[in-house]
């Protein structure tokens, strides 16, 4: 088993293109998002204004309410003509369109755009003096450190990378070995399926934890992630999550010799998992059935636990339910993968 473990590690490390990509890919994603979300792009809404020369736009000189000019969540987009601007609104490239012509505020929104509906309220509120609210509302602000989007996103990116590497690095690779006869050659030796699969699994788990550490270290130098919990707890969750996802890879690997079909199956599993498990955004507020499906996915529990530790400072006992689910799923996946494993087609 040790020899197979070492051999698989050599295979991974010496394949420089694959090895490099496994580290570079998550690093580039995190770095890219870090740059995007640390610049002025905190704007959530796009407000078109016409007629304004885009090259000579002077925000101060615009005849729109002052509040709209200085709101950090609104990006002003100038257009020279009405036709050009309304086309962008129709295609949801902007959320609202204002005419730069006082004194009455004239605006256009799309009925089918939820953001447009919100922006209409914002635009109307902008023309009401601030003191009108004073006696009617009480503003409360959250105290303490707030979680940056990049801090929330980072565990998701690492989890996504582990998911792709587990499924492709185990599922796809073993199917390839079965097709080109490597597994058949091993079957002719005293090596057992248990020994082979265990070696593959340990190798992949070790490689993924090492590369995740490298990516974390590199990204941390750039973005100084806020770690609220313990590094040991995070390691335990990474270990449990990686074992679970590698075990899922073993199910894909247990049969089949068609690499293209395997590729399709892996993508079919990965893409819904990526969106439903909240790698990029929260599914809070979606239908109950969507949340039910999400709960069946291992990445959901992995990311839920790791975010609780990294972002909220939770301890292992506070994420024990996720750990139990991940271990139970690992056991089920491993059993299915081992029972149905075949050396040959």
């Amino acid at each position, binding site marked *: 088993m*040790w*020899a*197979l473990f*070492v*051999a698989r590690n*050599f*295979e991974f490390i*010496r*394949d420089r293109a694959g090895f490099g990509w496994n580290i570079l890919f998550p690093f580039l994603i995190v770095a890219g998002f870090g740059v995007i979300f640390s610049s002025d792009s905190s704007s959530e809404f796009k407000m078109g204004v016409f007629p304004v020369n885009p090259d000579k736009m002077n925000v101060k000189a615009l005849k729109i309410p002052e509040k709209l000019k200085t709101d950090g969540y609104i990006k002003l987009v100038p257009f020279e003509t009405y036709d050009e601007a309304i086309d962008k609104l129709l295609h949801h490239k902007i959320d609202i369109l204002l005419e730069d012509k006082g004194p009455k505020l004239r605006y256009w929104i799309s009925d089918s755009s939820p953001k447009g509906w919100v922006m209409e309220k914002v635009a109307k509120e902008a023309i009401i003096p601030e003191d009108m609210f004073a006696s009617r509302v009480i503003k409360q602000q959250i105290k303490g450190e707030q979680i940056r989007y990049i801090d929330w996103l980072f565990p998701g990116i690492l989890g996504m990378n582990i998911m792709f590497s587990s499924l492709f690095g185990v599922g796809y690779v073993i199917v390839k*070995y079965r097709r*080109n*006869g*490597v597994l*058949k*050659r091993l*079957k*002719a*030796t*005293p*090596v057992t399926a248990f020994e082979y699969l265990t070696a593959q699994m340990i190798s992949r788990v070790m490689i993924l934890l090492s590369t995740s550490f490298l990516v974390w270290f590199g990204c941390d130098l750039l973005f100084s992630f806020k770690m609220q919990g313990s590094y040991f707890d995070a390691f335990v969750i990474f270990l449990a999550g990686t074992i679970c996802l590698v075990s899922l890879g073993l199910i894909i690997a247990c049969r089949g010799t068609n690499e293209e079909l395997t590729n399709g199956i892996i993508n079919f599993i990965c893409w819904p998992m990526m969106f439903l498990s909240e790698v990029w955004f929260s599914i809070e507020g979606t239908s109950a059935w969507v949340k039910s499906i999400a709960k069946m996915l291992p990445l959901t529990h992995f990311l839920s636990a790791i975010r609780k530790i990294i972002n909220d400072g939770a301890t292992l006992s506070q994420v024990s339910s996720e750990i139990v689910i991940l271990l139970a799923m690992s056991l089920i996946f491993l059993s299915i993968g081992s029972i149905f494993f075949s*050396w*040959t087609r």
Partner: protein
Amino acid sequence: MSNKSNIIEVRNLKKKYNNNTAVDGVCLSIFTGSCFGLLGPNGAGKTTTVEMMENIIPQDSGDIFYKQGIRDKTFNQEIGIQFQHTELLAYLTVEETLRTFASFYNKHLPVEEIISLCMLENIKKRLNNKISGGQRQRLLLGLSFLNDPDLIFLDEPTTGLDPQARKHIWEIIRNMNKKGKTFILTTHYMEEAQSLCDTIAIMDKGCIIEQGSPESLIDKHCKGMDCPWNLESVFLKLTGKSLKE
């Protein structure tokens, strides 16, 4: 009844793939220390027969006895196999590949001895994906000898090799055979079978249609015929001259 000198014996072996009969009632007895050649046109069932004997694929029916008994866990420790189509782990060197495979066995020959026997010294540090076809065949042959097996299966061991590489592999097989190792080989090269094998079986349509020593087969089928006095004439006479696939 099993002959005590048989290393492997096959009785009424059958295998079907969907509705196609690949092997249809094959019976074989292979003596310890012999070099047994299994010949036949493409699709005759040679590889399927050999892979059932190797315990790589299960038979639908029939019996296989190894050293007069059923094949148990020790079978894989005592046999060597070279498959027709096998890739190796691309990013291991030749030497690492041999050492990795050696570790699978309870006992094995020194890796250096295999490197020397199969003339792999010059390429032992080279990655498997950087070696030529002939070098790869020599490495695969070396892997089949690693555990100092009693019985060695070679499925078309010299296909695609140049004459020099082929002659070299013949030499290795002859030397090992002289040391008492038993070989079962399939080949499409009649010259190879005639040169190496002491017993030949010819298969067609899943059945053994003729069996004997190369000399006896030539004598039986070429006598009085207007054909070259060799195994190829025997093969063509028995399996026909038309294309089989």
